[in-house]
């Protein structure tokens, strides 16, 4: 994590352009003295290694700096957008597991059936499709042509939602606002499918192949010869062992969920971290980019840590 912070820091400092000029970009006249005072405030007049020290010290304290353009602390900006992003990522993860688990298992049990072929070809399509394109196709189909689902945003205007936690689904349940609940759930459908589709495809493929392997193994033959019911064999013996490689892949897919969210949030006008960072890039708002990328990397590392822990639970042979 420390190394990640240093990489992020240097990338940002290596780029041309004076941050103070950027900050003043939209503003009117400003005196030279004032410019110097601003440089002082952000430690921009100090040598690079001192700047790095300030950055690391502040980051360790949970202070990621101050946005040049939005003129707010980066941490509070991130905290404001994070619930939206988590809600979307959660929706995508739920969608992908709901699809991938049954599809992967059934394809393995009924190998080479038409169901297997169909689901594996769609999985193939899933990994070959850029997320933004799938999103546009879905919008075109379900929003523009059929008018079933909303095009953009998180909740319909005028649903009277009171924000408590920032998670709109949770907020509407807490406040007992049924209209807002349906609206926010409906708004979640398309972005979640778009973000979750490639993840579902990868999980289904890996689950299928590891299920196939498990179903051919000795312990499954043994379980069958003991007269165990087939469902029980599949669930208890094959699935449990097939989950080990699958869980690893799910951990790696968190990267796709995170990276994809910049693109998908842009497509669906979802007010989360991804859209904020894309805007920050165009504004050259370095502290904001720096902080958000740090959060992304942090989440990714944490996800893989959780996978490692799950691993030992699923496979007692591995000791941490």
């Amino acid at each position, binding site marked *: 994590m420390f190394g990640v912070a240093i990489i992020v820091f240097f990338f940002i400092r290596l780029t041309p352009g004076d941050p103070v000029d950027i900050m003043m970009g939209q503003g009117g006249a400003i005196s030279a003295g004032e410019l110097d005072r601003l440089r002082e405030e952000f430690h921009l007049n100090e040598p690079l290694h001192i700047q790095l020290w300030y950055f690391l010290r502040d980051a360790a304290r949970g202070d990621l700096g101050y946005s040049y353009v939005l003129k707010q602390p980066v941490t509070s900006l991130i905290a404001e957008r994070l619930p939206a992003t988590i809600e979307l990522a959660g929706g995508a993860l739920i969608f992908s597991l709901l699809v991938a688990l049954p599809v992967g298992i059934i394809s393995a049990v009924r190998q080479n059936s038409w169901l297997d072929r169909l689901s594996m070809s769609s999985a193939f*399509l899933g990994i070959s499709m*850029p997320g*933004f*394109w799938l999103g546009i196709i879905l919008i075109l189909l379900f929003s523009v042509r059929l008018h079933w689902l909303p095009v953009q945003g998180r909740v319909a205007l005028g649903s009277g939602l009171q924000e408590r936690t920032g998670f709109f689904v949770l907020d509407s349940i807490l406040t007992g606002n049924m209209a807002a609940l349906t609206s926010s759930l409906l708004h979640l459908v398309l972005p979640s499918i778009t973000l979750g589709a490639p993840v579902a495809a990868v999980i289904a493929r890996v689950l299928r192949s590891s299920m196939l392997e498990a179903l051919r193994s000795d312990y499954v033959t043994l379980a069958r010869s003991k007269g165990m019911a087939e469902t029980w064999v599949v669930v208890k013996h094959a699935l449990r062992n097939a989950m080990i490689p699958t869980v690893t892949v799910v951990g790696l897919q*968190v990267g796709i969920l995170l*990276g994809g969210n910049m*693109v998908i949030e842009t*497509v669906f006008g979802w007010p989360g971290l991804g859209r904020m960072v894309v805007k920050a890039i165009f504004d050259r708002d370095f502290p904001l980019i720096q902080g958000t990328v740090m959060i992304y*990397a942090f989440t990714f*590392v944490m996800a893989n840590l959780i996978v490692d822990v799950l691993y030992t639970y699923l496979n007692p042979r591995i000791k941490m």
Partner: protein
Amino acid sequence: MEVNHDISPPFRDQAYGWRLRLELWWRNFQSFLRDLRAHPLAMAGGIIVILYLFAAIFADQLTVYDPTRGDLRLRHIPPAWEAEGDWAYPLGTDSQGRDLLTRIIYGARVSLSVGFLSVGISVVVGVLFGTLAGYFGGRFDAAVSRLADLLLAFPFLIFAIGVMAFLGPGFTNLILALTFKGWVEFFRLVRGEMLAEKTREYVEAARVTGQGHAAIITKEILPNIIQSVFVLGTLRIGYMIITEASLSFLGLGLPPDIPTWGSMVATGRDALLVAWWVSTLPGLAIVLLVMAINIFGEGLRDILDPRLKLDG
């Protein structure tokens, strides 16, 4: 009876050696083609990729319109099969009245060159570092492995977006952004294989016969692992193309005057309600190409490196 015990002269002959080698390559290639024929899907994928390559190379000869300049009076003409379509513009025109097919063909140039170039450079860097790290180990191995682990802490697309954000749009920057992390996978593959291979008997035998490190690496070990690199490389091209398209879609790829599929989808999005084709058809070009590459790559894997096979 006279028996000729001396079998060395023909082998000492340089030209003869090369002829043998060429013949061997040719035979390997032929057997590869035979294997490929047993995988009709992979062959179809390969043919589609070749068609795309052909279109990209001969874009100037294949198209009659200017990909960057349009006629506003001709904007939003639907594809030819629609009621108001015109066969002069088979896939219709975009919001600036430019022929969509022309732009898609020119877009193939960007996607293919980015895909092949970024994977090519990643392969060279990854194989070089992986070989040195895996074969010699030591401090170099420790340093590069550490760097690789560090880069793995970033999801690929986020890393590429971050790099592009700071380098700004441009072709060289795009390749840089994609290869900066792209080499890591090849490094890990080659390093791992190197570690496994260098303890095998044939390497031992080569060492006993007095071959140097360079000869052992290039003549003995690399030929054994290069096929896996080839397979992984093919499968990565599709991913690089999607990543490039995503960057272009966000406006972080190439300068806006160059037609790329990603930016075409992005600009077409504004006209989604009146002209669905402007956004969806360039995207379809991506899907078709990436699918063809992936199918070809998976077929390649089944033929060259069945160990990596996904379906057991």
